[in-house]
């Protein structure tokens, strides 16, 4: 593999290309799209958590002046395939449609049942009240405990036309709410525990958390007179959106163009389509007029995918010196209304920081009457690693060892076989542990009543996948760089930097653009911490393509053999025989009259040409607990992470600080609160208590750089693992402060007081 040894742009901190427009309010987000004659849509949602739809009557809504169309489930085309395959398992294709507009049953409060469009938003809103829906209300299933009771109501009791092997397997001839079960592991778990000197066994729980992005979901659709559909939306992946929309609308992907708007946060949740097909169906009923459908924040909270509430059971066995010899983990994850929780992510990452010879992880995907969960930053890993890292902390106490010394005994290293059977490549566990133990925060003394310190580690495997890049050299020596990767965390800058580095040209000479589905090749979604790695590979290859073409063109200009010309990125200069040189800018200026302009492109499957580098993080946190109010105050926070090579250190630090802030919210304050009828009681951003600037101190960040040898610039994904350690780190700090462990997060003041016996 080619390895650049001349980093000059990598590691610097240039201004992001989208920064000024975002700060000035000029960036065009999905809801800012305006088209001539555009209609506005709203969604009629279920007021019940679990009910059978007896009747839907839209006639009064259609009669309201200004209303142009109403759609229900019946307006979707029949699904061509009975089963849709996805990475979370196969499912009936009709469920993908029912999630968008309910058919026979509604499965959570907020489940869409109809959509309407009108000349303005207020008329559309009024029309919702005129849509009559008759329900037969059923008892809801609102927790894992309830879902697993033998007497529990069954969400998918109607079965499906062709039962799918492995999905909702029946027990004693009766369906259950358990969608799937998985089991991973290696070694001999029973023998491992027999060899252990100390065994601990604990249970933990986490709540339902929302990603908390500030921009609600939106979708705008317009059919052209040629029968082609164009969709504008705030999404983490235009190509992924194209695929799912085309499937539910039975429309060839070549007839569908998805234009990604600027995005106001996603954290995994904007991989999912909610409104786009509804806008398309409404537009079609209106002769192709553009229709825009938007959510408000209440709809976002009640009807889009949060993360799973979870229960975990952990059993660890260790030798007296702290070496962990056996680990047994059981995970139960809520999937919401349809199968597909991130329990696999939780299972595969739960023991990631460690090398344990005997291990077993069992996971269950369980449906409940809540919105179907969506990905949330390192999906599944925060909960499972909260459980394991809390248990490791308790194991250290049991053994009388410093918690980081214990972690030094069994670190995951290169070649370590993971729970899933794969082996680690290069991984920075030792370097991160060392950075923690040498950090002034960890070495400092913490004094004062009700104060405590916690540490925890985190692991995430990171993703690879497919990416494309297309770069056009202009005659002035600037380059337009098109990629299909939506920019959520500074990717435009990070990709432009890698391209500029490979070319040896200034970062400012690269115009980095997020392209739509008809302007660049297929690219997987921006998610899984894959973009700077995988699309970075693509822009690197596109730059090499341009370099090679330039060598040939300049050879033709000089009338020498192509092999006699070499592109030297140090100085962006082409060198030929007899000390002949031509700068990149000079060459760009001569392209038009020597054979035409040059474009470089690359379509790559990143894991076929490189390898993903897994990520290790660790947090140190000091807290103070008020024994009267139960409030936890974070006194000091340090986040340490192996980042491979930080392309743009400021954005890497920002990812880490953002992930930690979200993890603190999970640990202390955030949680969906439902009443007995399945109504979310804190369905506003005032009552759903995300941390504010007053709750989170400055988060000190330490970037540990263990370059990934599977990438030309050593990149590892950095965006997801920061959310993994905070839950356990904060919980461990609380336990250290008050001497009582809180096994169920969030550790809100009420929960703290309950555990202190003062509620």
């Amino acid at each position, binding site marked *: 593999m080619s390895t650049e040894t001349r980093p000059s742009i990598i590691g610097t901190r240039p201004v992001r290309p989208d920064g000024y427009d975002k700060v000035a309010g000029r960036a065009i987000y999905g809801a800012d799209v305006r088209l001539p004659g555009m209609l506005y849509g709203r969604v009629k949602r279920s007021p019940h958590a679990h009910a059978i739809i007896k009747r839907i009557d839209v006639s009064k809504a259609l009669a309201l002046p200004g209303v142009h169309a109403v759609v229900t489930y019946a307006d979707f085309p029949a699904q061509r395939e009975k089963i849709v395959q996805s990475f979370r398992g196969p499912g009936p294709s009709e469920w993908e449609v029912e999630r968008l507009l309910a058919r026979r049953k509604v499965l959570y409060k907020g489940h869409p049942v109809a959509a309407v469009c009108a000349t303005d938003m207020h008329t559309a809103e009024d029309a919702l009240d005129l849509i009559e829906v008759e329900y037969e209300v059923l008892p809801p299933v609102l927790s894992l405990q309830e879902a697993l009771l033998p007497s529990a109501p069954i969400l998918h009791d109607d079965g499906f036309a062709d039962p799918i092997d492995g999905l909702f397997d029946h027990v004693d001839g009766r369906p259950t709410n358990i969608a799937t079960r998985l089991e991973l592991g290696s070694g001999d778990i029973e023998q491992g525990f027999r060899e252990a000197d100390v065994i601990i066994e604990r249970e933990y729980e986490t709540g339902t958390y929302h990603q908390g992005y500030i921009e609600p979901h939106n979708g705008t659709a317009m059919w052209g007179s040629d029968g082609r559909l164009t969709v504008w939306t705030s999404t983490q992946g235009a190509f992924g959106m194209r695929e799912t929309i085309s499937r539910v609308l039975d429309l060839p992907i070549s007839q569908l163009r998805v234009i990604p708007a600027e995005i106001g946060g996603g954290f995994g949740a904007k991989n999912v389509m909610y409104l786009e097909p509804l806008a398309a169906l409404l537009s079609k009923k209106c002769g192709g007029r553009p229709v825009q459908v938007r959510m408000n924040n209440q709809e976002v909270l009640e009807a889009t995918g949060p993360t799973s509430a979870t229960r975990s059971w952990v059993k660890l066995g260790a030798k007296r010196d702290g070496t962990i010899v056996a680990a047994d983990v059981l995970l139960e994850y809520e999937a919401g209304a349809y199968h597909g929780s991130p329990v696999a992510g939780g299972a595969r990452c739960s023991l990631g920081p460690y090398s344990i010879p005997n291990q077993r992880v069992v996971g269950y995907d369980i449906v409940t009457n809540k919105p179907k969960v969506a990905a949330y930053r390192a*999906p599944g890993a925060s909960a499972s690693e909260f459980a394991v890292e809390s248990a490791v902390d308790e194991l250290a106490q049991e053994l009388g060892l410093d918690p980081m010394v214990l972690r030094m005994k069994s670190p995951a290293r290169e*070649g370590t076989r993971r729970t899933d059977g794969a082996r680690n490549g290069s991984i920075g566990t030792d370097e991160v542990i060392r950075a923690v133990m040498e950090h002034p925060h960890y070495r400092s003394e913490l004094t004062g009543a009700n104060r405590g310190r916690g540490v925890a580690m985190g692991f995430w495997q990171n993703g690879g996948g497919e990416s494309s890049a297309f770069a056009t050299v202009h005659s002035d020596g600037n380059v337009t760089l098109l990629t299909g990767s939506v920019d959520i965390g500074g990717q435009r800058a990070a990709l432009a930097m890698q391209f500029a580095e490979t070319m040896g040209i200034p970062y400012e000479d690269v115009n980095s653009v997020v392209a739509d589905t008809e302007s660049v090749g297929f690219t997987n979604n921006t998610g899984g911490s894959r973009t700077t790695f995988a699309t970075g590979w693509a822009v690197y290859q596109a730059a090499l393509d341009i370099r090679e073409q330039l060598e040939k063109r300049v050879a033709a200009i000089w009338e020498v053999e192509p092999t006699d010309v070499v592109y030297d990125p140090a100085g962006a200069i082409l060198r030929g025989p007899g000390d002949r040189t031509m700068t990149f800018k000079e060459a760009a200026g001569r392209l038009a009259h020597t054979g035409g302009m040059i474009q470089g492109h690359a379509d790559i499957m990143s894991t076929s040409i490189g390898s993903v580098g897994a990520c290790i993080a660790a947090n140190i946190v000091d807290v103070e607990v008020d024994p009267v109010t139960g409030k936890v105050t974070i006194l000091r926070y340090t986040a340490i992470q192996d980042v491979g090579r930080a392309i743009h250190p400021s954005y890497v630090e920002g990812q880490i600080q953002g992930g930690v802030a979200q993890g603190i919210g999970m640990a202390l304050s955030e949680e969906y609160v439902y009443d007995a009828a399945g109504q979310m009681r804190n369905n506003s951003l005032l009552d759903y208590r995300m941390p504010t600037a007053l709750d989170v101190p400055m988060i000190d960040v330490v970037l540990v750089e263990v370059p990934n040898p599977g990438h030309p610039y050593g990149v590892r994904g950095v965006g997801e693992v920061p959310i993994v350690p905070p839950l356990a780190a904060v919980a461990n700090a609380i336990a250290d402060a008050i001497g009582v462990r809180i096994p169920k997060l969030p550790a809100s003041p009420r929960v703290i007081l309950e555990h202190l016996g003062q509620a």
Partner: protein
Amino acid sequence: MPVVHVPASLRHLAGDRSQVEVPGATLRQVFAALERECPGLTARIIADDDVRPDMAVAIDGSILEGVGLVYAVRPEAEIYLVPPIGGG
């Protein structure tokens, strides 16, 4: 011969075996041999002439994506079948 490690959830289709040794120089050949050895098992692994999206394949320690059934495997390859992870 390559060894296919069967996940616990599929072992009932492999005679409760955790690993099955089968011949093959490509993933397609390995899975064809696996199907002969354990009828019905590969329906949970393969669909539409590709590895199913809810199944990831780790070959000799590395999880591979998008390589398809034409991927060449070593005579002593170890093949793990694991649930894929979605990113956020």
